[in-house]
């Protein structure tokens, strides 16, 4: 089991300072939920962690490896840290099975047979054993998101980041996806989840972080953050979303 540690991470887009010195820990086997208002920089933070964006300042560690070291290949980092997006980002021109196989074949260099077996196993794990040959456009949103989770899992990552994985889904699909994620959490996967699903956070999260204005405002157990927040900004945010 692996962990992520971020220290003093800063990132600006032009004049806009999005991350203003973020310290964040995702402990081994922990499910960490990140909540916060729109535009507060949650997505930017996750993208910095797997180097889809290069932070301007600060260090990010995976276990004890400094990912921000310029000698580290970003491709290697992304292979270790899976990512699931709000818009799924499945490869439109590939079937579900091939979506999962692509990186196994060309990043992990598995042979076709092994890659195919892994893809089938992972798609079975998320309940899509009967959709191997469907193209993304032929799947519902919830099914696409589960393919995306299978694609991330197939790489055998040490940590998985979820960026609002259920925000683009209808209520029924949300439950399917959350069920898969909940199971992953129980199996001991280290996960950082940006979400507004309070039910999920209360049930599955070990710890919740309230993020605003490019900083961690408050952290604690789900109960502490949702019910007994200390900070007034957290309180007003919770009032808005719990209403």
């Amino acid at each position, binding site marked *: 089991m692996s962990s992520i540690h971020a220290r003093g991470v800063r990132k600006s887009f032009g004049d806009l300072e999005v991350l203003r010195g973020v310290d964040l820990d995702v402990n081994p086997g922990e499910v960490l939920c990140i909540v916060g208002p729109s535009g507060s920089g949650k997505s930017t933070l996750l993208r910095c962690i797997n180097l889809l964006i*290069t932070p301007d300042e600060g260090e990010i560690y995976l276990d004890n490896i400094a990912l921000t070291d310029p000698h580290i290949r970003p491709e290697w980092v992304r292979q270790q840290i899976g990512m699931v*997006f709000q818009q799924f*980002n499945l*490869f*439109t*021109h590939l079937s579900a099975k091939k979506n999962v196989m692509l*990186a196994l074949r060309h990043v992990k260099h598995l042979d076709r047979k092994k890659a195919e077996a892994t893809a089938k196993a992972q798609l079975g794990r998320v309940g899509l054993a009967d959709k191997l040959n469907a193209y993304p456009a*032929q799947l519902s949103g919830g099914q696409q998101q589960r393919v*995306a989770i299978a694609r991330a899992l197939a790489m055998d990552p040490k940590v998985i980041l979820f960026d609002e994985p259920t925000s683009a889904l209808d209520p029924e699909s949300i439950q399917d996806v959350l069920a898969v994620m909940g199971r992953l959490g129980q199996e001991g996967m280290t996960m950082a989840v940006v979400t507004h699903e309070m039910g999920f956070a209360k049930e599955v999260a070990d710890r919740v972080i309230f993020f605003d204005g490019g900083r961690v405002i408050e952290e604690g157990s789900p109960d502490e953050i949702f019910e007994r927040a200390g900070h007034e900004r957290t309180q007003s945010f919770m009032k808005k979303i719990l209403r």
Partner: protein
Amino acid sequence: MDRQEDGIRSARPPAGDAPPTRRSTGPVPLPSAVRSGRPPTSAGVRPPWWTTSGFYIGLGVAGALAVFVALGRLGYYDIWFIVDNLSSGFGPLILSLEFTTYSFVIGISFAFGLGLVRAHPPKVGKHLARKGTRGRFSFLWRWPLYGFATGFVATVRGTPFLVQMNIVAISLAYVYPQFTFLGWNQFCWFGLLALTINTTGYQAEVFRGGIQSVEAGQIEGAKAVGLTRTQTFFRITLPQTFRLITLPLTNEWISNFKTATILSALTVEEVYYWSKETIAINDVHPIEGFVMLAIFYLLINVTLSRVVTYIEKVRRIPGLGTPIPEVSYTKRVLRGELPARARG
């Protein structure tokens, strides 16, 4: 399940008389179209002939032919002259097709490179901001390359082909006034070069558009699973680009085919030259000459479009490229695929 809800009508009229209790007696047999596993749209019930697109295309062609024959009977031109002389244009027509296709194929490789350069405009700040030295100063060679590509495309698209061709041919004629190579004289080669330059410019824009219309999310998804930039390009961007540009590239071939008529101004004996010099002037049948030309172009271009559309349809991946037009509700009712009235 009620058959009406399947959206498929069996050969028998819908069973309004079948009591709902039937459900309890066992599963309702599926219509044959469903049992055979074929999509219900084309199987089982044959659509009435007058709702098919083929019928309307046939109607259009028949109408055009009728006008064509009627004008002939009225004495506007001599139909029999056209019938007798059409085959003499096959040789020049093939030469036109050669010019079009050679320039198009040579153009593709250059256009691909130019389109690729144009799809990624250099940003000094973005590159300078990179950590380490790798790629940090790449704007130093990216800028001139991008500038050249953009200037080339702007020039080709912003000036008439006739002007481009004359500049190429006249300046080259000073250096190589006369030669024959592989059976073509100097003007054929100059013309081919001009046509290649022209189609390269247009194709470059097609490639640029195709590359840029691959969604950013696709690239992000590829990066997130650990693919390198090169792998992402060849495994994600390129396959999707090819599906997105099939139609615009076909349009460019057709456009190039029509542009090739201008080579006649260099006395290249392609099909326009033939119709003008041989038929219109020598044989004194001007209208017939150009009608024959129109027949040639129309036949080839319409055939090509239909073949490409067919290939696109067969090789289609859902969610990528030209969408299949939705069949309207009314049309589906007329074809017998849906009941006329939705039942409550």
